[in-house]
């Protein structure tokens, strides 16, 4: 017989250590459920998918309702959406245990499996992001002036493909929250209704932050446009903050434990303060003022917003792992009267 040498036995590294009492009241602290194997690559996929999706939404809305002056925003948002979505399928495939079998994902469509829907949604979002970027590249002369490719690109119905990408883009930036919620992991399952909206808000704030800075640096964009984008970012950031606090409140003391203690507790503190509260305050303080200092502050705030988008997904992902490893959290969640 073959021995599986893993260094440690599989339950050993998951056994509750820090939860003390839980180890005494459960089955020797062995977690009753298995956690997901997802690591940083999945968090990065969540982040890039969100950024691509929200950029796609902004590009479409700016194209459909923004008029001529929003054109620089449309251009940047379309490119950002395309660039952010490029690594997404590779991260998804990299994360599979058997990547060479990725195409098995395309055997079926299952409406009750967010993983299955997500793959199809990613394909749809990739297709619309590519179409939009292609059209934009043709308009911008990146495909040459008289080449057949440019002619093909210019023939794409501009407003129609913009409208077409709204659905898949929204789906891509929010479905990952649903995916986490549809598991037995206490922290995720308990907050199934909040995770989708939370990821959506975070994705929108990230896209707004990235686009407003890009516009300031690169684009010949009007200041009112940038200010409107920053106002949208503020709305998204405040909603994100509210949702994150609500998530923690709703989880209750036991299930929320990983959010409050240890390394993840520090990530959560940094996220709440530097990632959300600080950019919101910078927005409120600096407002639309010009000058070197406000400009620098705005750039720093943008960096913090982008970092917070990734940190949020890391936090939710790994806090979920920790709550799956905590027998007490699973037991509390599975007692009647403690459901969302």
């Amino acid at each position, binding site marked *: 017989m*073959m021995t599986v040498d893993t260094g440690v036995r*599989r*339950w050993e590294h998951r056994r509750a250590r820090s939860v003390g009492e839980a180890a005494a009241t459960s089955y*020797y602290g062995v977690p009753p*459920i298995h956690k*997901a194997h997802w690591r940083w690559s999945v968090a990065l996929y969540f982040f890039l998918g969100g950024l691509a999706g929200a950029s796609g939404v902004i590009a479409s809305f700016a194209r459909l309702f923004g008029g001529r002056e929003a054109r620089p925003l449309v251009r940047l948002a379309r490119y950002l959406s395309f660039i952010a979505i490029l690594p997404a399928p590779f991260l998804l495939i990299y994360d599979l245990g058997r990547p060479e*079998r990725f195409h098995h994902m395309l055997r079926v469509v299952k409406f009750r*499996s967010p993983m299955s829907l997500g793959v199809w949604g990613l394909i749809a979002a990739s297709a619309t992001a590519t179409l939009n970027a292609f059209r934009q590249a043709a308009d911008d002369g990146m495909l040459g002036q008289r080449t057949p490719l440019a002619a093909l690109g210019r023939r794409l119905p501009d407003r129609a493909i913009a409208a077409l990408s709204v659905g898949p883009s929204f789906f891509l930036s929010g479905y990952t929250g649903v995916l986490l919620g549809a598991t037995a992991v206490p922290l995720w399952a308990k907050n199934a209704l909040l995770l*989708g909206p939370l990821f959506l808000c975070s994705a929108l704030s990230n896209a707004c932050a990235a686009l407003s800075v890009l516009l300031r640096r690169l684009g010949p964009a009007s200041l*009112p446009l940038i200010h409107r984008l920053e106002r949208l970012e503020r709305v998204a950031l405040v909603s994100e903050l509210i949702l994150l606090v609500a998530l923690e409140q709703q989880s209750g003391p036991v299930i929320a434990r990983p959010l409050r203690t240890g390394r993840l507790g520090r990530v959560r503190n940094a996220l709440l303060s530097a990632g959300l509260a600080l950019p919101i305050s910078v927005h409120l303080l600096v407002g639309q003022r010009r000058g070197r200092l406000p400009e620098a502050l705005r750039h720093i705030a943008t960096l913090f917003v982008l970092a917070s988008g990734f940190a949020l997904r890391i936090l939710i992902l790994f806090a979920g792992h920790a709550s799956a490893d905590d027998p007490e959290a699973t037991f509390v969640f599975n007692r009647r009267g403690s459901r969302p």
Partner: protein
Amino acid sequence: MAADLRVGTTGARPGAMGFLTDTTLCIGCKACEVACKQWNQLPMDNFGFTGMSYDNTGDLGATTWRHVAFIERIDDHTGRRPVKLQPFQSNWLMLSDVCKHCVYAGCMEACPTGAIIRTEFDTVVIQQDICNGCGYCVPACPFGVPELSLTDRKAHKCTLCYDRLKDGLEPACAKACPTDAIQFGPVPQLMERARKRVEELHQQGVTSAYIYGDRAVGGTGGIEGLNAFFILTAPPEVYNLPAQPELPQRRVLPAFLSTAAAALALGLAAWRALRGVK
């Protein structure tokens, strides 16, 4: 109460085959674990003493499809050995845990490739030639049954010896069990037997005996019962089982709706922010 009427009933489909694991008969010999490994040619786990009771396996996993849990009931808080025995047994509780082959299975609904199927025996099986190792079934199981193997990177779990069933044999664990703690058969018959056994136990003074896996307990949130169920004599948590597990996929539609509502709100905000810039 509607829930009370469901006690001792099963939501199993016609023709469903399953396990009744009667923990009051289990002597902790681990013959089921060994028979399972032997028949299914599962590699041994990293051998060692766990330091917790007589359990040297830990939990269910990719290479352990039957797992015997040993729980010593120390009833006073000083941690001394109890001096009076329960009416039917020692102060050890033993549970041979296994995949529950849920009537509505979280792992199967989560699987994005269709690798997890329901067989003609109403059992849940992972098709190894389809599984692409995405691992979504692993956290989707409220009982912590499937797991990704470190050797072939695919998800594995109990098949209820599908290959043996096909040939009219009972599963290896049930065959090997010396005390008939593990019984195999059509689910409605097993459930009937379980109810009689629980009544019997109640008459013997074991008033704590109950069926884990009937519709009232094992299927509160849409799981609708388990095709592999258990007779227990202590709260489920003592055996490392969730009290009232829920089907994770029941949350998919509400979660998508709340996300769609948020998308609508954010879309409105984006429209207000970006419309007609002048």
